[in-house]
Every structure is written in C-alpha cells, then in structure tokens.
C-alpha cells in the first residue's frame, strides 16, 4: 500500500502531515509513505517515517495542469492521498469534481457546507457560531460592529490567519496587510469568545463517520496553538448529530471542529478544518488512530492496533538528521534595514491563494474568500445631512470649510430632550447636559440652552462662556481635573454640581464650601474603577485609597446633596463594556453609600456615545439603565445624562476640494485635497462618512471603499484623510467632498497648520 501525505510544515504552527505519517506507520508498518511538500524549507520532509519525499516546486511556480495529471496517475495507480493543506484540498475539490476513490479529501459541495465563518452544516450540533460580519460592509458599519463587541474582535483571512484588532487604526492596518496577503478584500470580523479551547477530530469515508475524539488544549504556544492536550470520548449528544451531518454532506477525509467552551459551558464553533488537526498523533498515542481508521475505512485493510500509552499528550522539540538528498537552503538576506529573514509560508501558499481566485474551476461566488472585484458597500447617510447640505452654498465658501448642519443638530437635541422627558418620573428626574468641550460652538451651546440642557464644563473660562450665552450658575456642572484654572472667572452664585477628581480636591472643596468661597447644590466625586485605563477620577483600586475616600465622603457637610459621576467613552471601550462599567460604578457607589452613611442623590452619567449607539434601541437601553439605578442606589432622585458626542458629532461636516488627481495603471490611486487631519484630528479613531458632490447636478453620493488614498494638504507624513475610498469615475480637480460626522472632537480639537 502506498499513501501520499501532503503538508509537512513542522514549525510551532504545524501542518498535520508528520503526525499522520507517524500514526499510519504505527498502523501499517509495511505501507510505503510518501511525503509531499512544496518547499524544501518544511522540516517535515526529513521525518524518518517517510519512505520517500515527493518535493514539488512552490505553489507560485507550479504548473498546476501537469501537477493535476501526475496526481491523477498516482491515484489511478491505487495509491491513497491524504492532504493536510486546506488550499490543496479546495483545489482538489475543483480539479476532481467527481472525487476519486483514493483521494481522501472532501468534495467542493461538502467544503461549502463547512465554510467559515457561517459553517452552514453546524445545524443540530450543540454549538453556537460567534457573531461575524464580512468586511465588505462600509467602514462606518464595521466600526459600529467593533464598538458593539467592545473591540474584542478578530479580523480573519479567508483561509487562515486571525488577528486581534483593538482599535480602528489597528483594524485599518491589519486589514491592509491581510487583504494584500490573500489578494482579496473579502475578509471577515468575528467576535471573540472567552473560554477554553477544545476540538473534535474525526475521520469519515463517503459520508460514514468512522471515528471521532475530543481534545482539550492543556498547553498552548504563543499563537494559542496546541502544545499539550487530553483526549476523551465525544458524548452521544454530539456524535449523533455529527454523524447525520457527515452523512448529509457526504464527507470523506479527516476534519477538525475547533471550538471554545465558555464559562457557562456553552460551546462556540470557530471553524471546521477540512483535514486532520496537527495534533492528530496525540490521539493515536491514546489508542485512537484516526488516520489509520480513515485508511481502513477506504481500503478495508485492517490496521494494526495502536496501543493506548496515555490519556494525555504533549509536544517536545526534537533535532533530527537532515536527509542528504535535501540539504538545507541558505537563509534569505534580510531586506535592507529590516530585522529578520521573513520565512512565512515558504511553500508559496499566499500566492497559491491568489492563483486559486483566478482559476475558473474555483467558483468565485460560492468561495469564501475569493473575488477579484469585491463589492464594498457605501455607508448610509441620514437624509437630514443631505437636506442640510442642500441649504448651503458651497461655491461661496472657502475650503476647507466647517459646515453646520442646522436642522440635523436641532433634531438631535430635540430627540435627546424628548428621551429625557420620557424617562423622567415623579421619583426620578432625568436631565440632559451638554459638554461644552465636545464642541464649544455657540450655536450648539445655544441649542443646548433652548432644549433645557445643563452645561457641563471643565474650566472656568468654559463657565464664563456658558454664562455669556445665557446659562445661570445653577445650570452649570463643573468637572475635570483642572476646573479651577483661571479662578478670576469664578462667577457669583450657586453651581448645580461640582465633581471632584481626587480626594485632595474633595477635601479642598469642602473647605471652600464651609468658608463660603464656593456654593453648589450637589457635591460629588468621579471614580476610577479598577481595570480601567483612565487618568480621571479617584482610583479605588487599593483598599487604602478606598478607605481614605470613605473618610472624606463622611466629612461632606449634610446640606450638600452627594453625587457621583461616571463618564467613559463608549466609542473607545465598546458599548457592552460601557454597560459593564456603568453597573460596576453603581456597585462601587452602593458600597460608598453603605460605608459612609451618605446617600447618593444625583448621578451624572455620560460619555462618548456614537449617535447610532445612543439611538439604537435607546429608549430600551436607557430604560434599562434607569431601572437599574434604584436597585443599587435607591436614593438617587436625579440623573444627569451627558450624551457627549452623540449630539455634536453629526451636527457638523467638513467640506474640501480636490486639488490633484494622481493616476497609476489607469486608476486614481492618490488624490490631494485641501482639507487635512488638522480639520479631522479624529481620523485615526473612527471612519467618517464621505459625500461626493456631483458638479453637474449638485447631488450627493456616499463613497464606498476603493483603491484611492486621499492625501491632505499638509506637508506631514501622516496627513492622509482617507486611505481607501472609491472616487466616482469622472471626478475632476475642484470637485467637492464633504466629510460627515466631524462635529465633535474633530471640531474642538482641530488646529491651525500650514496656513502661513
């Protein structure tokens, strides 16, 4: 018996070829095992169990037609072929559409049923699939997905590779790398599931499940790959639906179901690999030789029993002799100025992936990652933006110009007011506050005043401005670490609330209140809870500081209502995490109440909302929040809600003109605009929706993702205001682009640069 085994890479993220060979050698001592590789750098070619090595040229050089014919001859001669290379398996499915009795790999119909991330064939198994989206949706929506899942997301390539992306800048960078590596923009984002990893490995022939085992990872490499594990039986509740699925999709070959078991014991299916796992010999050691069971199932030749040596296995690093017929190659020269020799994918798998995309046998529509011409969706832009833009005469403006979207802004403030009224009850009043630092534009501050908002300030100059616009001191909240800066601006009168940022400040403010130097209705603290990367508030992460805080709170004179303050940018920490922090703050406040004997009567909640996150089920979410408060803090009578950038962000946009178009291979690959990151300093933190104005009819078109970089006018390396957009075909110099969502910190933190 001759068995060809392909995929012999044997680094810390190995292919299973060597493990399959070791297992088959145990079961069929006399079989001729032929190792197939596409690079002489894959160390598995030197493994002793191979009687012969069939070394091919790397995938990027290989003549696939000749290679197909050679493989067909091998299979026709009666030899078996077990592949451990996902891409080779997909390619086989294309070039052997009707299969071959000796080819122990699944068909393309079967592969489609286990495609990640959806894994259509998981129905019936006691598993869930982690939420995912394709990266073909707009950047705006991708950012929303990341926020919704607290930035605990993985960007995954079409076949292999998964990278954590913790911020928008990181996401953009990794997306660029992965898209280039795999020659496709069709990647996907999937939520992270915390828990313990386990797998089920199986062997099946022509739709019959032959054997399967469970493996729990017990030690991991730096990349979370298996280093040690234990093997156990798969329970009947899993095997029965699995058997049904294997039958239904007529699977042939090995497979691995990679899963995570969470703290609630729920299994999450991450992916199904269409081959044996690299640890497969670990199962053989425990007496479950699955490669042998596959060969036995396919040929009927009885395998020699594999003795159970243990229930657990581990890996070691071994040095083995290099076969003289395959001497080692020299190391490639490091690229100028770089560190390391870059030896990733020595067999040219990345190039093979892009070759596969170009093969007609590889069905682009159905395939998961292929596609030369991916369809990226443009973002949805609210009609009110377009209406407001219609009322502005852009030709009369000097660009870059900041545009105030008047009706949009009014509408957002009105809705926030309505929501507060809706949530208020006799027992609990909900009041909005506008944080002036978000955007100190007078038009917005005025809107806030007219909409019944309080003014939230971080400095006495901000207080002065609020008063100038019409706020009274009792409508003003003071917050932040530097609120007493420029004390000459301190107004007469009683503030609404003062929130102290430290125990030192709290003690000082108590003295000032007692001496009559300051007046306020509420006096409170801002807390910095453990595990929050923040420079604000009183850190309660040691029992010593917590005890000092309790002592200070006990000293607050009884005539001031005690208040607590919680602000956290949900757009940075994620929406789910924001809610956790909110509940966490309520618990800390409950402890402070219980220990200090001072009841919390006012809670100031806010922070960095995206308008969509605030509006999405807002009444449901806010009702939930408002309902949660009395559970922990039954004496709160007033909630101050600071929607932050949810109101300011959509209220302004930045218009800019195209100064130059640069072509490369008939594509505009760079365009220079007169705007810059000086007007869009938040460019690195979130994507902005971009509108293009048709110069003929004045109509507006949202831009999707494409190949054009928009370079800002500044002579600064990082002044790139958009790195991948698709400009309309007839774009001309002088055409107008409008960057929406620029009304919050883009505006307040914009700076003057390069204007002489």
């Amino acid at each position, binding site marked *: 018996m001759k068995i060809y085994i392909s995929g012999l890479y044997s680094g810390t993220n190995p292919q299973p070829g060597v493990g399959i060979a070791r297992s088959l050698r145990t079961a069929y001592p006399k079989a001729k095992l032929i190792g197939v590789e596409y690079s002489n750098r894959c160390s598995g070619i030197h493994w002793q169990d191979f009687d012969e090595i069939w070394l091919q040229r790397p995938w990027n050089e290989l003549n696939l037609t000749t290679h197909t014919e050679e493989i067909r001859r091998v299979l026709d001669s009666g030899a078996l072929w077990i592949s451990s290379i996902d891409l080779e398996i997909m390619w086989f499915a294309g070039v052997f559409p009707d299969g071959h009795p000796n080819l122990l790999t699944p068909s393309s119909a079967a592969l489609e049923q286990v495609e990640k991330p959806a894994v259509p064939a998981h129905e019936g198994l006691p598993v869930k699939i982690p939420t995912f989206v394709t990266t073909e949706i707009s950047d705006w929506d991708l950012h929303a997905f990341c926020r919704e899942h607290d930035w605990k997301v993985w960007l995954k390539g079409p076949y292999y590779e998964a990278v954590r992306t913790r911020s928008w800048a990181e996401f953009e960078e990794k997306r660029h790398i992965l898209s280039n590596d795999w020659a496709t923009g069709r990647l996907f984002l999937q939520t992270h599931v915390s828990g313990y990893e386990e797998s089920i490995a199986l062997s099946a022939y022509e739709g019959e499940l032959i054997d399967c085992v469970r493996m729990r990872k017990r030690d991991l490499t730096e990349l979370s790959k298996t280093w040690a594990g234990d093997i156990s039986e798969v329970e009947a509740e899993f095997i029965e639906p699995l058997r049904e699925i294997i039958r239904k999709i007529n699977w042939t070959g090995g497979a691995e179901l990679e899963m995570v078991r969470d703290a*609630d014991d729920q299994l999450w299916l991450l992916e199904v690999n269409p081959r044996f796992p690299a640890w497969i010999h670990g199962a053989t050691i425990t007496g479950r030789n699955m490669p042998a069971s596959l060969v036995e199932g396919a040929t009927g030749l009885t395998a020699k029993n594999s003795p159970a040596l243990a229930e657990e296995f581990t890996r070691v690093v071994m040095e083995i002799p290099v076969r003289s017929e395959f001497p080692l190659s020299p190391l490639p020269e490091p690229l100028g100025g770089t560190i390391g020799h870059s030896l990733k994918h020595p067999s040219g798998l990345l190039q093979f992936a892009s070759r596969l995309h170009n093969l007609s046998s590889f069905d682009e529509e159905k395939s998961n990652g292929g596609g030369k011409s991916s369809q990226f969706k443009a973002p949805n832009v609210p009609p009110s933006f377009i209406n407001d833009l219609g009322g502005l005469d852009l030709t009369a403006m000097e660009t870059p110009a900041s545009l105030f979207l008047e009706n949009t802004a009014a509408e957002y403030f009105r809705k926030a007011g309505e929501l507060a009224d809706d949530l208020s009850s006799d027992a609990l009043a909900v009041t909005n506050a506008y944080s002036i630092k978000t955007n100190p534009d007078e038009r917005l501050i005025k809107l806030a005043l007219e909409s019944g908002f309080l003014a939230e300030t971080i400095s006495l100059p901000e207080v002065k401005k609020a008063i100038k616009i019409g706020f009274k001191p009792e409508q003003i909240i003071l917050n932040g670490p530097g609120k007493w800066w420029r004390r000459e601006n301190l107004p007469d009168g009683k503030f609404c609330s003062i929130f102290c940022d430290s125990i030192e400040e709290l003690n000082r403010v108590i003295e000032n209140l007692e001496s009559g130097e300051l007046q306020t209705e509420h006096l409170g603290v801002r807390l910095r*809870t453990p595990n929050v990367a923040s420079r604000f508030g009183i850190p*309660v*992460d040691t029992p*010593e500081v*917590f005890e000092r805080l309790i002592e200070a709170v006990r000293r607050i004179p009884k005539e001031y209502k005690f208040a607590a303050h919680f602000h956290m940018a949900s757009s940075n920490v994620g929406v789910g995490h924001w809610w*956790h*922090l909110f509940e*966490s703050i309520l*618990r800390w406040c409950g402890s402070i109440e219980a220990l200090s004997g001072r009841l919390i009567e006012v809670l100031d909640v806010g922070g960095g909302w995206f308008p969509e996150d605030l509006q999405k089920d807002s009444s449901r979410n806010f009702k939930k929040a408002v309902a949660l408060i009395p559970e922990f803090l039954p004496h709160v009578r007033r909630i101050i809600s600071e929607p932050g950038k949810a109101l300011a962000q959509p209220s302004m946009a930045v218009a800019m003109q195209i100064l130059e178009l640069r072509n490369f291979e008939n594509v505009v690959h760079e365009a220079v605009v007169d705007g810059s990151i000086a007007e869009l300093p938040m460019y690195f933190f979130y994507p902005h929706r971009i509108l293009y104005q048709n110069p003929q009819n004045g109509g507006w078109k949202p831009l999707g993702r494409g190949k054009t970089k928009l370079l800002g006018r500044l002579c600064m390396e990082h002044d790139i205001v958009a790195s991948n957009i698709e400009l309309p075909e007839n774009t001309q110099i002088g055409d107008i682009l409008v960057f929406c969502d620029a009304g919050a910190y883009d505006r307040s933190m914009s700076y003057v640069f390069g204007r002489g």
Partner: protein
Amino acid sequence: MYLDAVSNTLINTNGSAKTARTIEKKAVFEYWKDWQPSQISHHGGLCCEIAREWITATDFSSLNGDGIFTGPRWLRQKFNWGASRFPIHWCEAVRRDTLDCGALAALAHEVFTVRGVKSSRVQLVQKFSALATSQWTDSWGKGNEPLAWIKDDLIYHEGCAIDTGDKNIKVWDASAGWWVDSKPADGYGALLAIRLSDFNLRTGESFKWGEHIIKADEWLETS
C-alpha cells in the same frame, strides 16, 4: 501502629499475637479529616466592612463583562501564595502581600457568593513529591516545626466549589487560579480526595463533579 511509607498502608500491630495481622487501608485524607476550612474573621467594625466591600466591588469590576461563573483569578494576581497567620481579619487580609490557600479560597467563596453564585468551600488532598513538600516545609516552616498541612508527599489544600446548575459543580483552586480537573489522576499535583464543606449544605446532599458524586461534608477519594 505505623505507616508503611511505601504503600501508605496502616499496619495494625495491636491485639493478640495469635490474631492474624489485620491490614486496613488508611484514607489519604486521614490526617486532615477533622479539619475545617479556614475562615476570615471580622472585627465587627467599619475597618473590616470597607475591606469586604472593596473585595466584592473590585471583583465585579474585574469581571469586565464576563459571566458570573468566571473564576476570580484577579485575587491571585493581587496576592501571592504563601504562609498566612490565623486568625486573620478582613482589614488585614486585603493589606497582605501573601495569603495561603485557605484565605484565598475564603475570598473566592465570598466573591462567588456576592455574585449570586451558589458556592461552597472545598477541602482537598493533593499529591506532590517528597522533594516538593520538603521545599514547602523549609520555606513555610523555616525548618522548625513539621507543617500540619504536609504529610510525606501529600498536602492539605483548600478551594471552593460553585454550583453551575442542576447540582453540577466546578472546583476552583484560588491559589492556582484554575479549575481543578475532575478527571481522576495520580502523580505530581494530582487530586486524591475532596470534601465539600459548607454550613449551608445539608449533610448528605450530593453534587455531581465530572464523573464523581460528592456528598456534602463527606470526604471522597477521587483517584
């Protein structure tokens, strides 16, 4: 009576010389069968109350949104594992750098309970090696007294168990920061015996832990 060090068998030499020697197997938990789980004491004042609130509020913050069955590994990040003097009060415990398995288990039990998880204390007997236990004897006892929690290659250890539903339990080793594997094992670090000890459990109430059925307040040999 003496202990056969090799087979862990208690050899009864009492009684008439004519009687055949009766050999009874001594349970691995024999030395600790009457021990009770360690407790953290409370001064009854604000000092200990602040400390307890701090532990439970910090625990909730440390969950970072994960489920309530998540093991409170942060406790082990905060405190080293080592000898603790008893009695120990809450206000002292939170300020110590080092806590022993009993104090760590008591803290873990407290945080699980406050999270709303049904939790009970567990007492464990683990096997290590004579070398490991002699190291502990040296470092904990400074070479003076033999330590009561060590007997040859066995050690007494504490943790806590949580009920994840339908009387299925998971056993949390608060000193190691991991869930104890219920699969029977022998050898270095293996768990040999376990007892669920909690005042709130009814005697005889039983729980499922992997393949084991554990009755409250009764020692069970697991390997």
